[in-house]
């Protein structure tokens, strides 16, 4: 707790120092500044844009000894097959300034119509994933309000349509891409609809059961999508010698792309980055960036194995730091993420939001992960080679501590700056590694987790 407070204080102190000492603002290419800060006196009233991704994936995992499958062996968001085509993202957005004579007000809206963790759980055809207005009237303190990406880890904060891999690292997926517990308490006994995982579990399911309609994805609300609804104060400062420092402080509902705040508490976010800028602009701007972030919130959860609704509040804290280097033809990124509370499970049991009491519980467990990745844009060609290693340890020091290691090797071909195809091959090593009895059953399911191949076409318009 002491470390956490120190980290928070350091971030606040650094942000305040910057706000009061740095002179002038820039309109630099960083994720905080790439939306809602259109070029002064040159913004459209309404610019329509978006992106589409189409992919094919095949998972080579084997079922457990009784023919059962668990989520890491199946393709999301349906979790009922091991190969198939999908349109994970199909968005249409609009951005600009409502009153072109005043460059200090900008807006940004994006509608997601792809089949993914945002649209599938609620059965939505489309979901609003961005709707924000940015006011830039106060020097050094721009204000953004609405639904937007919270300031945090690079993988989450960066624009997904320029993300160099098909799937996120396990740490980002497991610790940051938030799955929310089902709101209403429902016993899982005797029901097939979404239920509270604490009272039971679903699966593993055999292929026949899955084809017969059994559902492993019992989440009933969209994933967090690295977003929140709230207010953010932020800005970027040119501090000389091509260095730019950015900060952001946000308060939000802590409920992802949903608009309610059922627990009455707010999530707090802090972000700080320093970047040596090498040149370029937009999402592919070149530079060397160091960043650190933290977020603090609570979630309501009913864990008791009874028929009474008695939800309790649990802390959900996250923090991380990292570095990113991009200068053609090379790219390198490293990031470390730490999590405390509300650790989503799901590895060996489908909607297993939290582990059984015997193993301790994900609601108050700890986890951490990191990844390192690099890319090489082969000079004088349209090809790019990528490689990433990532690891996640969840339920640290618990009876059912899991370690997920993953190598991803990839190649991309850029037809043009806005259209590319991405080939990824994932080599996965997932296991429960506490060495205790709590790992016996999980490992019967995790031993068969195999490799995965994916081919994805991305087009930005």
């Amino acid at each position, binding site marked *: 707790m002491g470390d956490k407070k120190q980290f928070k204080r350091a971030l606040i102190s650094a942000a305040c120092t910057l706000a009061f000492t740095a002179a002038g603002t820039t*309109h630099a290419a960083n994720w905080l500044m790439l939306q809602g800060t259109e*070029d*002064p*006196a*040159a913004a*459209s009233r309404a610019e329509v844009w978006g992106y589409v991704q189409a992919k094919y994936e095949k998972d080579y995992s084997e079922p457990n000894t009784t023919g059962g499958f668990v989520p890491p062996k199946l393709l999301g968001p349906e979790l009922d097959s091991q190969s198939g085509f999908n349109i994970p993202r199909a968005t249409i957005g609009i951005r600009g300034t409502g009153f*072109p*004579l*005043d460059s200090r007000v900008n807006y940004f809206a994006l509608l997601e119509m792809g089949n993914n963790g945002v649209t599938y759980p609620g059965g939505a055809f489309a979901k609003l994933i961005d709707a924000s207005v940015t006011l830039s009237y106060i020097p050094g303190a721009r204000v953004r309000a609405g639904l937007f990406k919270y300031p945090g880890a690079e993988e989450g904060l960066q624009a997904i349509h320029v993300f160099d891999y098909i799937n996120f690292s396990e740490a980002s997926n497991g610790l940051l891409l938030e799955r929310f517990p089902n709101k209403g308490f429902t016993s899982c006994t005797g029901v097939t609809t979404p239920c509270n995982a604490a009272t039971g579990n679903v699966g593993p399911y055999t292929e026949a059961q899955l084809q017969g309609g059994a559902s492993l994805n019992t989440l009933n609300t969209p994933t967090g999508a690295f977003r929140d609804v709230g207010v953010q104060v932020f800005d970027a400062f040119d501090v000389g010698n091509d260095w730019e420092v950015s900060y952001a402080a946000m308060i939000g509902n802590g409920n992802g792309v949903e608009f309610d705040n059922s627990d009455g508490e707010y999530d707090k976010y802090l972000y700080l980055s320093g970047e040596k800028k090498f040149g370029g602009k937009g999402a592919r701007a070149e530079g060397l960036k160091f960043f650190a972030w933290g977020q603090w919130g609570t979630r309501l959860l009913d864990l008791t194995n009874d028929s009474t609704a008695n939800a309790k509040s649990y802390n959900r804290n996250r923090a991380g730091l990292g570095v990113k280097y991009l200068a053609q033809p090379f790219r390198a990124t490293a990031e470390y993420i730490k999590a405390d509370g509300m650790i989503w499970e799901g590895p060996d049991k489908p909607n297993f939001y939290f582990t059984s009491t015997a193993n301790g519980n994900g609601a108050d467990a700890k986890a951490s992960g990191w990844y390192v990745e690099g890319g090489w844009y082969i000079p004088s060609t349209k090809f790019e080679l990528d490689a990433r290693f990532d690891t996640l340890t969840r339920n640290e020091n618990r009876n059912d501590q899991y370690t997920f290691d993953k190598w991803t090797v990839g190649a991309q071909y850029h037809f043009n700056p806005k259209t590319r195809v991405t080939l990824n091959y994932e080599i996965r090593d997932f296991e429960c590694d506490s060495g205790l009895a709590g790992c016996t059953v999980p490992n019967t399911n995790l031993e068969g987790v195999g490799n995965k191949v994916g081919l994805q076409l991305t087009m930005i318009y």
Partner: protein
Amino acid sequence: MFKYFQSAILAISSLFILSTATPALSADQSLADYKYVLHISDMDPSKQELILNNAKNLLDAYPPGQVEVEIVAYGPGLRLMFAENVNAQRVDSLSQSGVKFAACGNTLKGMAIQLGAEPKLNPVATVVPGGIVRIGELVKQGYIYIKP
């Protein structure tokens, strides 16, 4: 004596009026072989970059002193000449290379009403009474009219 004095006063006054009435962007004395007026009145931000590129390309295409370029902005296109415009540095640079910038006074008045105050213009821009009138004058002087 009084008549001479009156005539002198009249002559001096006329000269004063003439000198103040002469637009700062007078171009009819130009010795350049090629003269272009570039017109921007669009909201589209990409047109801002395009017209600046056009001006630069024209300067590059001719030997020094052989080409005269003037950019005339009115309507939504006047944003190009706002002091805060993201392309302000390029505007400054082109101005130093001899490109002239004319800002429409009528548009400026209209914008002042909408904003509650007149927008601050790039110092290199010269306000002309009417952008469209300025284009007409330049065309009459032999300028080639271009609207990218």
